[in-house]
């Protein structure tokens, strides 16, 4: 008998423009003491399915299902919290900022009329690994880190001793090392309390590490379903195969070869002792590296490591407080002329394009600034560059909202390349994209580098991607340069503890090492 049994789940949304079928014919089960993962890209309906199970969809959604049962009882809203706990995605948004940690965790207990709430909450906080529970009890969410807040949410979800936990992308907003800790905690809780977990994730590697069963979803339907080992080792559907091939963390250490180690060539960019101080906070200190023409240098670090500050300084968008940047033999000062030589591509393609500007205008803007080309010539160049990034030239007259995330990022790349820069700073340029789109953009970047001899500065938190794309790498932590060298060298033979921790936290280890979670 399964813990959770969902058969033939359908969800449709009614909007003024008509009815949209979001999810159709979903079947899944969660066993007691096991984890079932729903894997899919954005828009695949994985969150909709999970929220439908717990009954938290908005009013314009209509849910029909053959059965949603928890130990043979239909799931009702009354079970929320008591029998089914939910861990939301973004810990910083999911806790009430005006309530203390203790009150947040206690809320469910109070609603369900428990006595002796405080001691229970303290025990829970201790259980999820929060140090000094007495002190934390009185603190507010903004005083805690994202990882700590996620622990608090887990404590709140566990407070009423539910049979099933629904974890909706519980670690997507967290750094990779914190992600590992939180997932370990979930595993530990599952084993200790014998609960079932329904884990929603976009990351097949995470699912492979943590889940006993995997459900792969695409466009509202289940594509493939089965034991984790089966699905990963022997994917039957082309979509699953593509997901597996495109996930950088799964490729690491297996088929994808590292890039040829050293490339001889002239140094195009050299950074010496770069530092940035805000008031009495040091964001960046003593960063030094050199990049050869036509190669990719990666800066890796967690949030707050100073990697974006470094990228912005090199792109000339801020004046560093100390240090020197030399580009092509010339000492760099922020100026308009420099802008042509260093271009930047941003993380979020939804915020880096002006919503009121057409694609063509956005791409051509730089040309208008730096050259005396006529409007017609600019249009022609824009068309050329749209084709270069594999977009249809007809898109020039569209606006950003008509394009998908991947298409927008291609536009942002075209906007950077049309100025024929020496160095392109890619600031988390693929982090916001779905894994298949990410793979496409990475392939495009590689192709462009070979064709145009571009030099990339690739800023990322994702070591798996960095390993795939970069020649040399700088690892940063809290504004300090921790390690620096050829990517192959740093990854196979890390010198610092921090790099080792980072490498160890890349999900997908079980897949890479072949020791699958067989669900036995």
């Amino acid at each position, binding site marked *: 008998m399964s813990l959770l049994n969902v058969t033939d789940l359908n969800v449709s949304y009614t909007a003024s423009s008509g009815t949209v079928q979001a999810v159709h014919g979903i079947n899944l089960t969660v066993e007691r003491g096991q984890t079932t993962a729903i894997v899919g890209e954005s828009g695949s309906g994985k969150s909709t399915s999970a929220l439908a199970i717990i009954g938290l969809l908005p009013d314009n959604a209509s849910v029909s299902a053959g059965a949603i049962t928890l130990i043979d009882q239909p799931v009702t809203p009354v079970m929320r919290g008591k029998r089914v706990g939910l861990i939301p995605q973004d810990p910083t948004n999911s806790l009430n900022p005006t309530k203390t940690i203790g009150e947040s965790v206690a809320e469910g207990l109070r609603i369900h009329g428990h006595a002796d709430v405080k001691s229970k909450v303290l025990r829970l906080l201790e259980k999820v690994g929060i140090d000094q529970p007495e002190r934390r009890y009185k603190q507010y969410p903004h005083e805690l880190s994202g990882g700590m807040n996620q622990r608090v949410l887990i404590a709140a979800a566990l407070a009423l001793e539910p049979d099933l936990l629904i974890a909706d992308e519980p670690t997507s907003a967290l750094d990779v090392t914190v992600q590992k800790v939180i997932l370990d905690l979930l595993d530990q809780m599952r084993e200790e309390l014998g609960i079932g977990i329904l884990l929603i994730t976009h990351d097949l590697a995470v699912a492979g590490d943590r889940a006993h069963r995997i459900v792969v979803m695409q466009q509202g339907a289940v594509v493939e379903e089965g034991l984790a080992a089966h699905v990963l080792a022997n994917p039957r559907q082309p979509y699953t195969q593509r997901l597996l091939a495109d996930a950088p963390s799964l490729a690491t250490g297996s088929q994808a070869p590292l890039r040829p180690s050293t490339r001889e060539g002239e140094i195009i960019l050299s950074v010496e002792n770069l530092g940035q101080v805000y008031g009495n906070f040091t964001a960046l200190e003593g960063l030094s590296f050199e990049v050869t023409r036509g190669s990719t240098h990666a800066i890796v670090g967690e949030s707050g490591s100073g990697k974006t500050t470094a990228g912005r300084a090199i792109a000339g968008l801020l004046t560093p407080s100390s240090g020197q940047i030399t580009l092509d033999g010339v000492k760099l000062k922020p100026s308009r002329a420099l802008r*042509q030589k260093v*271009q*930047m591509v941003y993380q*979020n393609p939804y*915020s880096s394009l*002006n919503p009121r500007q057409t694609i063509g205008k956005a791409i051509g803007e730089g040309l208008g600034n730096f050259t005396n080309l006529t409007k017609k010539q600019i249009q022609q160049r824009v068309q050329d560059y749209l084709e270069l990034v594999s977009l249809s030239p007809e898109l020039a007259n569209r606006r950003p909202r008509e394009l998908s995330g991947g298409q927008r990022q291609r536009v942002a790349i075209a906007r950077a390349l049309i100025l024929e820069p020496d160095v392109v700073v890619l600031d988390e340029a693929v982090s916001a994209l779905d894994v298949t789109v990410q793979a496409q953009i990475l392939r495009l970047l590689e192709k462009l580098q070979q064709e145009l001899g571009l030099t990339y500065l690739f800023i990322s938190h994702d070591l798996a991607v960095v390993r795939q794309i970069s020649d040399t790498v700088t690892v940063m932590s809290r504004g300090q340069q921790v390690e620096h060298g050829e990517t192959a060298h740093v990854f196979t033979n890390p010198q610092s503890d921090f790099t080792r921790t980072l490498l160890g936290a890349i999900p997908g280890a079980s897949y890479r090492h072949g020791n699958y979670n067989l669900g036995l």
Partner: protein
Amino acid sequence: MKTAYTKPTALLAYLILATAILWSLAPGLFTQGDPIIGDDRALLAPSATHWFGTDSVGRDLYTRVIYGARNSLLGALVAVLVGLIIGTSLGVIAGTLRGKAETIIMRIVDVLLSIPSLLLSLAVLILLGFGTMNAAIAVGVTSIAMFARLVRSQVLSVVSSDYVEAAYGVGSTRTAVLIRHVLPNSLTPVLALVALQFASALLQLATLGFLGYGTPPPTPEWGLLIADSRAYLATSWWLTLLPGAVIVAVVLAANHISHIINQEGQV
């Protein structure tokens, strides 16, 4: 596509505003009467010949309301333009230059906001002298602060967005960024405020007219019509009520459109 812009209530609001605008552009189309010279008995009740009745000197009130639209709407338009142009400029300057310029501008704006608007417009009127246009300018001055504050906050949020940085990144100058990126993306809420301020300017102008600081008689103006007839409130209440209803209808219509713009965003 069915949006809030095409709902029945929105259509009604457009209809009311369009009618008022037509009144002010071509009053002769709506009435044959003379707004200045009375030709009938005074204080008649509404009837088929005099839809709104006649005033104390026998002029057709309906005719005067229609001819009054021009003065009232034009006044409100000028008032909004004064507030929009000066306020938006101040807001953009404060939002883009930051530093001392921002501090000075925003403190002046705070002072403007702290003075009750009627008092402020009366003070300006006393400085400028009475009259239709002066009343409009006086009312406009009271809305400068609102526009400046709104525009500044909009500009601040747009200026920090990635696409503005990206525009600087491809070598655009500050002016170009301002015109191409910042202004187009800041103006939707400003448009909503324009509609809202139009309504409030209409009311304020009527207030000033009522108090006798606006358009001098015998030119019809909505506030003045109500002021003239308030002495007969007990016997001929419709003389106050009907022009009042017209003002309320136009103000509500403008308010409603402002509300829709705010809700829908993108125009």
